[in-house]
């Protein structure tokens, strides 16, 4: 059961109030400079509020609501550009375990993630940041009763903080496998990738003969494993789009306020039409991004058959639109917006990472074309 709109409203207010206190710009700046990279106290509160279990079925200890509700939290985390393990643990790792066929492996770990006892992530991009199966740069091969992993994955969110990793690997014959790997496994190494946005940490994860018990597979290797990864990619796209829509909304509100207050030539700059139209363009993009991420998150609560299309539509529009909103925010703020001290660059950088973390918009359009054009052309 997804939440009613009144309940969603309640969730949004709670989130906004908490993050308004605990994820101020000043606090975010302290946290990103810290060892952990996120605020453990805040994370504890997020878990206690039940945010990590919103979309987890009741039989698995969750609230049994949906992705449409989870997206409310993601949107608010974007607004406050909160550094947190939410994307990696609650969306990606939890999403992978929820989609797993092998409950014996998934359920106990899921319980730990939901309860905040451990953190997780998914390693499914190639070292070059591609999600195409053929580009996968971790390989697996049978090794007695276990399998052995070699190679590396790139752009893994929050890998250093994670206790468990869901790893996608490719056999010599091209068969895909998805398995749960303990972060402390021998031969597994995590190395920070220095990225521009400081609020999300990305890692290169390398595997040097890492042995994983065969029972750790989340599903049968082959098409089922590939389908699981496809769903995870959609989750990532929708989650980052929700985050970006939140950032853009915040950027719009702050920019409109600045345009109402900043005086030049004896008038508020918002009365100058060039500025007013920048703001109006931001409002149009924010409205369209909000409606689209909401529709996408609602799709995730429906049949997986349409998920790739959802990912394509969302990724094609929302990322670029929200980045443009942040760009306009910087132009309207001008000098002050170009300072490290002001938040505009924080918005801009996080929105730009959101836009490409789960694949370039252009790549998603190509996938959309590959999936849809044969159907549409035959209509």
């Amino acid at each position, binding site marked *: 059961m997804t939440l009613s709109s009144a309940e969603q409203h309640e969730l949004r207010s709670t989130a906004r109030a908490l993050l308004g206190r605990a994820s101020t710009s000043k606090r975010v700046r302290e946290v990103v400079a810290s060892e952990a990279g996120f605020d453990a106290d805040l994370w504890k509160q997020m878990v206690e509020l039940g945010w990590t279990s919103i979309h987890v079925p009741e039989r698995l200890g969750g609230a049994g609501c949906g992705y449409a509700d989870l997206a409310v939290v993601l949107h608010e985390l974007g607004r406050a550009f909160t550094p947190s393990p939410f994307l990696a643990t609650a969306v990606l790792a939890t999403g992978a375990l929820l989609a797993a066929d092998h409950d014996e492996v998934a359920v106990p770990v899921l319980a730990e993630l939901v309860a905040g006892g451990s953190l997780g992530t998914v390693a499914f991009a190639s070292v070059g940041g591609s999600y195409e199966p053929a580009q996968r740069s971790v390989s697996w091969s049978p090794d007695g009763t276990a399998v052995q992993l070699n190679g590396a994955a790139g752009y893994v969110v929050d890998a250093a903080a994670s206790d468990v990793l869901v790893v996608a690997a490719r056999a010599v014959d091209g068969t895909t496998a998805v398995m749960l790997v303990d972060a402390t496994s021998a031969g597994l190494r995590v190395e920070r990738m220095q990225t521009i946005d400081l609020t999300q940490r990305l890692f290169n994860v390398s595997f040097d003969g890492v042995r994983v018990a065969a029972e750790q597979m989340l599903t049968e290797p082959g098409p089922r494993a590939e389908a699981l990864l496809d769903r995870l990619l959609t989750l990532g796209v929708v989650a980052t789009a929700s985050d970006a829509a939140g950032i853009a909304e915040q950027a719009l509100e702050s920019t409109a306020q600045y345009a109402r207050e900043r005086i030049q030539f004896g008038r508020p700059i918002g009365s100058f039409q060039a500025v*007013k139209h920048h*703001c*109006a*363009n931001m409002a149009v993009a924010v409205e369209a991004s909000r*409606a689209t991420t909401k529709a996408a998150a609602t799709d995730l609560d429906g049949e997986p058959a349409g998920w790739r299309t959802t990912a394509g539509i969302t990724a*094609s*529009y929302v990322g670029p639109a929200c980045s443009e909103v942040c760009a306009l925010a910087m132009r309207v703020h001008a000098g002050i917006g170009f300072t490290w001290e002001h938040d505009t660059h924080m918005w801009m950088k996080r929105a730009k990472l959101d836009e490409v973390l789960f694949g370039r918009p252009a790549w998603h*359009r190509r996938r959309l*074309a590959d999936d849809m054009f044969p159907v549409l*052309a035959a209509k």
Partner: protein
Amino acid sequence: MLEPGGALAELRVGVRHWCEAHVPPGWRHQQRGADHAELVEFLRWWGGELRCSGLFAPHWPREWGGGFSVEEQVVIAEELARGDVPRNALFHVAVFNVAPTLFHNATREQRDRFLPGIRDGEVWCQGYSEPDAGSDLASLQTRAVRDGDRYIVNGQKVWTSWAREADWCMLLVRTDPSEAKHQGISCLVVDMHSPGIAVRPIQQAWGPADFNEVFFDNVVIPVENRLGPEHGGWGVAQGTLAAERAISILEMTERLRHHGIEGAIREAVAWRLERGEVALDDPAVRELLAECWAEVHVVRNVLNQMIDDIILGVDVSGSSSVIKVLYSELLHRMMLRITDLRGVAGQIDAGVLACAGWETGFWMNDFIHSFGWLIGGGTNEIQRNVIGERMLGLPR
């Protein structure tokens, strides 16, 4: 006759069957290159077909033959677009602009006088813009002088769509020149057959002559034809209401999907690029068409949000400007891009198809036509002012 109040799925099937039975096969082909008289005759005939079906004005109140809920109106708009119906262009002003004004701002007697005529196929036009009053509509100069129980009107309107065909005109005039410009305006209903009215067609950039100049020379209008209070016409003429705009843009967006972008994708199987390759196999073409296809869904998502809000009773007047900007600029950009893709082959004139929407598949024509959507109903620059001032609270 389709009726409101049943199951949505049945209504959908009903409209679908109605379209299959009534949309003349090959109308797009037959009407291409039609002259003005043929166009008007076709549109009158088509309006009649719609009137017999219950689909002419689904958003009107039940007592006037509408009564379809917002959800039902969405289904109807979707199915009409899917069924590739001709556009009800000749009656659009009457059904979407005049009738809502009558429901909200007219007396019972006025409704009883004018609405049955609309239902019987009378054509209306909207006389707002003037040569010196476009975006700054409130500066209009057409003058009405009160003379007992009648007004004497003198002045000129311009860009008046369908004025030659119109039986009636909803006209904005200045009744009190001494007042501030928004205060001295009244809204009158004019019988277009009155003595003293001269109408001159103006050919549009894309070919057809749908709009006109209208001259008023001592035209007599009875006072009972005034909508709303004297000097209070500015509030009466608020323009299309947000809910109606959402539904009509929804139909246009669905047309843009079925016949616009999906039509282009179907065509691109047969297009050849310079090196002989099939256009739909070219990566750049694929990306561009996929992006447009995705954006049609984005516009639809915004419309769905508006519809949800309308059903919940949330005010969507702010979104009304947003959706106009989004739809019209997507239309415009899409037509431009597809025209560009076609290269010089896209420059062949195969004749204008004036009774469809803005996505006839003759992309260069559609591109030129699409400027009308950027301009009409308040230019997009004005819409951006409205968004900035009303939604974001920016100073004027």
